[in-house]
């Protein structure tokens, strides 16, 4: 196949990828979009085979490895529980990053196979592109591994901070630029390997200071990085499909990070530099013992909701941890039988990744037109009888609206306190991730249900 013809086909697969993302504008068109994505990928792979024209024994190995990888991927895709989606995505990001590093290494070792010149005499532009691809890919890989370990609970979600952290990151960042510069002027392979090694280290250092609840930002950011790494390799290989895809994925991840930061009213740098409100944790926990809370049980909750005309459910990460989504759906079904109108309110940063709650509710067969975003539903709390908060905390804290001293002041929150009564399912009165006490616990219209989210919901179903 001629180079021009294959370039046209690569463009075609790039366009199909754009359509794949376009399809996600609504659930109805999304499945078709995914199909476009699969067709685009198939075209890209077939065209690559046809344009190489070098069908030696290696070709069979390519197919074998493709099938090995494909079967592993398919196996994971069918077996993974929906609650594990954040760590799965983090894990997948790490693979893209490492693949980018490997392709860059291969191009550096054998540039003639990619038309980039010869060993020791690689074209300058290609050298810059491949070193950027390798560096970003390596950061994506090691960063995603840390994110994966934190999300999986293998590593503690608590931020790891040490003295001089920012300084070390700065020095390493400068070292990367320095190494790329010297790599370009000397073509030395030791520079290349040091660049890859330092980038792996930067990825680790970048993610360890970021805490568990900031994971939505981290995971989107790594999504973005994996795109930029792919684009860097795309420039090296002069491949349109890769360049288009890299740009799409890069901007997609960047937009998601922006949305997540806005959902917490924090700047991107504030999140990346780690830690949130860890300082005034002690002062708030002292006065909390004295304030009285109303404590209820499943029967009280069932009674309140059965007699309500409208109920809004506010799910959070706790629902995912307790795997309470199916029990929740049963509860809602029972309420609907009693003529209660039920809807769901999702905060942008609920859960550990963008859209996390929506997927879990969809898994539990909750129709997506009963699920609303913060701006769509926030005014409805004032007219609602019961708000059922299950596993969410900081995103409901009215302090964000009233107390300028609070670390979460200005963060958009769900106006849960405006509903006639609030049922708050929580295991204890402990503060949420931001380390601040939730004023909502002590309000007159709040009934605390101290239990595991799933157990409590199941008990409510029984008493309905």
């Amino acid at each position: 196949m001629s180079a021009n013809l294959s370039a046209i086909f690569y463009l075609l697969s790039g366009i199909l990828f754009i359509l794949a993302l376009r399809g996600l504008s609504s659930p109805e068109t999304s499945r078709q979009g995914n199909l476009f994505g699969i067709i685009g990928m198939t075209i890209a792979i077939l065209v690559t085979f046809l344009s190489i024209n070098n069908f030696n024994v290696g070709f069979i190995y390519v197919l074998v490895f493709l099938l090995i990888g494909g079967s592993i991927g398919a196996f994971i895709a069918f077996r993974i529980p929906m609650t594990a989606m954040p760590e799965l995505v983090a894990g997948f990001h790490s693979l893209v990053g490492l693949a980018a590093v490997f392709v860059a290494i291969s191009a550096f070792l054998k540039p003639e196979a990619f038309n980039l010149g010869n060993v020791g005499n690689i074209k300058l532009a290609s050298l810059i592109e491949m070193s950027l691809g390798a560096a970003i890919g390596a950061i994506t890989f090691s960063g995603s591994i840390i994110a994966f370990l934190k999300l999986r609970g293998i590593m503690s979600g608590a931020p790891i901070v040490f003295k001089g952290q920012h300084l070390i990151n700065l020095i390493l960042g400068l070292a990367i630029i320095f190494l790329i510069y010297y790599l370009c002027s000397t073509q030395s392979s030791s520079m290349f390997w040091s660049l890859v090694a330092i980038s792996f280290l930067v990825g680790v250092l970048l993610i360890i200071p970021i805490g568990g609840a900031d994971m939505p930002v981290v995971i989107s950011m790594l999504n973005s990085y994996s795109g930029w790494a792919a684009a860097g390799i795309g420039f090296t290989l002069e491949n349109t499909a890769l360049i288009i895809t890299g740009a799409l994925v890069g901007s997609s991840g960047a937009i998601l990070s922006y949305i997540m930061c806005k959902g917490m009213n924090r700047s991107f740098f504030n999140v990346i530099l780690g830690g949130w409100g860890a300082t005034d944790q002690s002062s708030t926990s002292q006065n909390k013992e004295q304030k009285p809370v109303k404590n209820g049980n499943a029967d009280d909750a069932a009674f309140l909701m059965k007699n309500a005309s409208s109920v809004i459910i506010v799910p959070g990460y706790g629902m995912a941890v307790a795997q309470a989504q199916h029990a929740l759906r049963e509860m809602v079904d029972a309420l609907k039988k009693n003529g209660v109108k039920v809807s769901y309110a999702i905060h942008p940063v609920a859960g550990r990744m963008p859209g996390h709650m929506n997927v879990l509710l969809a898994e539990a067969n909750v129709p997506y037109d009963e699920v609303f975003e913060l701006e769509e539903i926030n005014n409805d709390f004032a007219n609602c009888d019961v708000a059922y908060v299950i596993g969410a905390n900081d995103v409901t804290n009215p302090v964000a609206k009233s107390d300028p001293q609070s670390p979460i002041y200005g963060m958009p929150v769900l106006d849960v306190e405006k509903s006639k009564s609030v049922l708050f399912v929580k295991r204890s009165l402990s503060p949420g991730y931001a380390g601040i006490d939730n004023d909502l616990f002590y309000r007159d219209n709040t009934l605390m249900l101290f239990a595991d989210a799933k157990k409590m919901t199941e008990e409510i179903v029984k008493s309905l």
Partner: protein
Amino acid sequence: MEIDPFIFRLSIFILSIFVGYYVVWSVTPSLHTPLMSVTNAISSVIIVGAIIAALAGSSEVVFETSSIFGFLAIILAAVNIFGGFLVTQRMLQMYKKKKK
């Protein structure tokens, strides 16, 4: 003076960033998780580079250092392609409208 082909690629890149920007803003927030898994799958189109790298050897020497990295990258990218698209498909199947 002739324009360097790099400039054309750069143009494609920058225009694609804009396309991505507008397309992604139109994605409904409830599908943000499938968005992440599908972008993950499509960014594995990096497999084209892996295939070129893997086939750079000759018939006599299939496995040399550079092609081994290519083969490894093929496995990684293939896990992502199949895993990414299939898990996205699985998620999207779950999004249903209210039965009227």
